[in-house]
């Protein structure tokens, strides 16, 4: 373990435990021996160059990708091929995608209420109240009856956040949530994410937004070529990287 781990983090109970994780796409070794723990309420940022396996890693956590070796334990449930376990874990985790992936044939309100009604078996009225509550929270209550196609990218991503929150997840996974957005819209999404971080949600974010990592993250993980190169608290990570690879990445991403 690296010396920079603060005592506060050690007291956190781990909610995601990944050990000895290996994954191949056909013959390509995409994740190599990943060991990672995320504590309850922790904000973890994963960064790295494209193709480094960071998206694959985060997608393994809710089984959108199947791993071949190693164990992943989410909230006390180990991921296996058992469909019931997978469904259970997926209901505990919300995921944000680069392309929002809202359901285009439904209104925003329906997007938000569909899963609580059909998966959580919530009465319609309660689901609607919940949906309006979270739309308020992501600051777009007036879009409830629009269709996703009529909303801007930033609005769509915030709707997607609200859609996840309606399922009251314990963990939120962010897979490059701002990469497909115009610069002017990135801020509105990041504001909501910062707000969410303040509420004590466990968050795992794959992102290139280094400003967000600096202000919100408890820990930053840097990956390259399918491996975790280093992990550290943001202060140390940005100011005193331990490996030359990290320093190179930081210099490229911060001084373009």
């Amino acid at each position, binding site marked *: 373990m690296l010396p920079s781990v603060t005592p506060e983090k050690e007291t956190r109970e781990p909610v995601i435990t990944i050990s000895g994780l290996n994954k191949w796409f056909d013959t390509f070794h995409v994740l190599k021996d990943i060991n990672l723990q995320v504590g309850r309420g922790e904000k973890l940022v994963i960064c790295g160059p494209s193709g480094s396996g960071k998206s694959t890693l985060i997608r393994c956590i*809710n089984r*959108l990708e199947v791993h071949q070796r190693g164990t992943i334990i989410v909230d006390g449930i180990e991921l296996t091929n058992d*469909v019931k376990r997978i*469904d259970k874990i*997926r*209901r505990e*985790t*919300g*995921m944000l*995608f680069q*392309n929002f*992936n*809202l*359901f*285009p*044939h439904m209104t925003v309100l329906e997007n938000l209420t*569909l*899963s609580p*009604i*059909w*998966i959580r*078996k919530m*009465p*319609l009225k309660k689901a609607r109240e919940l949906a309006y509550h979270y739309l308020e929270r992501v600051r777009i209550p007036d879009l409830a009856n629009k*269709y996703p*196609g*009529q909303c801007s990218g930033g609005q769509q991503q915030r709707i*997607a956040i609200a*859609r*996840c929150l309606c*399922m009251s997840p314990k963990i939120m*996974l962010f897979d490059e949530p701002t990469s497909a957005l115009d610069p002017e819209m990135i801020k509105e999404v990041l504001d909501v994410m910062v707000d969410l971080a303040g509420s004590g949600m466990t968050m795992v974010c794959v992102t290139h937004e280094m400003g967000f990592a600096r202000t919100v993250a408890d820990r930053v993980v840097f990956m390259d070529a399918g491996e975790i190169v280093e992990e550290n608290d943001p202060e140390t990570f940005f100011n005193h990287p331990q490996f030359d690879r990290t320093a190179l990445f930081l210099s490229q991403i911060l001084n373009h």
Partner: protein
Amino acid sequence: MMLAKWRPKPSLPSPNVGPGLTGWFRKNLFSTPGNALLTLVCAAILLVTVPPLLRWGLLNATWLGDSRGVCDAASQGGSSGACWVFIKVRMGVFMYGFYPLAERWRVNFAVLVLASALLPIFAPNLLHKTRRQILLSIAATLTVFCLFGWVPAVFIAFYLFAPFALERLFQGKPFLELFGSQALAVAIGIALAVVGGGLVYYAVLLGVDAKAAGAIGLIALVLMLFLLFVSRLTTTGWRWVLLFTVYPLFAFFMLVGDVFGLPLVETHFWGGLFLTLAVAVTGMATALPIGIVLALGRRSTLPVIKTLSVTFIEFVRGVPLVSVLFMASVMFPLFLPENVTFDKLLRALVGIAFFYAAYMAEVIRGGLQAIPKGQFEAAMALGWPYWKMMGLIIIPQTVRLVIPGLANNFLSLLKDTTLVAVIGLLDLLGVAKASMADVEWLGFTKEAYIFAAIVFWIFCFAISRYSVFLEKNYHTSRQ
């Protein structure tokens, strides 16, 4: 530092707005010498063909009267028009085939119930408000009361108002989750439904005859199954459930009869437009769901299911519909034990349903391929199990994408119903052909064919326009 105020420029009208009627003509009909020539040729063709057709079909045609004599007199008087009296006299046969005259109200009633059940589903823009739906239901009930009496009126009232009640009643915890395991819940549910159906059967048996009790008991059983396993549906959802459970049973008992004091009308008396629509509607309603299941099966990762689906689809696409119908009517009975018989119409229906299911499966599969992977991932990440995800998130999007292809299939299904003539069922075209052989009315083939063509065209055009409406409707909502 003082910043200058920036204002966006005002928007100007587009220069592309056309300069009126002459501009439109010049742009669309006479833009180049070649196009001008084409326009003139087309106009000439229309001038040569349309007036004689109008003269024959409308101006010189015989409309009034009720016997051949009127038409003969007209043609002796030098008029060379159509004899629509022929169609008028035989209208009953064209519409109902040989369905007994006194029983035709049953067909009308079944069609009326279907129409008032479908309208709220298929005209969402017109009837989206609950108040309007209730008004429609009341109007339909009153119409039925005036036309057919109070018993049918009570039925249609129950049928049309049930969805409103069901939506409010079934909002609680689904039956499937009341017990620990789903298998147990399914077993208890089926047992309950059977017992309930049996109780209804015996209750009715005390008052009416055994067949009526059987009919009502069966309807009660099917309904109970759905009531137990389906929950939290909207009014429209319940309308769909009733449409696929109660309505088919009702239509069957109503049209075939032999219960509730209705005389038996065997299916070989069915014919005309009624038979065409009966075959087409049941074909469409069954082929699409089967097609969806086949499409999903073909994309399945389970090898057995995939192979079965592929084999079925490729086999059916490799044979003509006529041969499927022949198989159903001639070959199929050979494989059955002697005392087991299936109705000929039923066999034709099954044949058409599976035949078109294979085609629709491929259309649906094309749509499934166009759904972005992210849609599946988003649904899975939210914890949706496979069938629910398909039914509520993926298939609705797919069907919207493939509306043109599905409309194509529906249209050709409607027109292919004429092929049931080869197994001896007289649909609209079959009746038209048969009526030409009537010794009293020899020589009116043109009228019969044109009438059949017009009726088919009306239905096909309606389907086609409806598909355009649906496309526009969904397009505007998705932008």
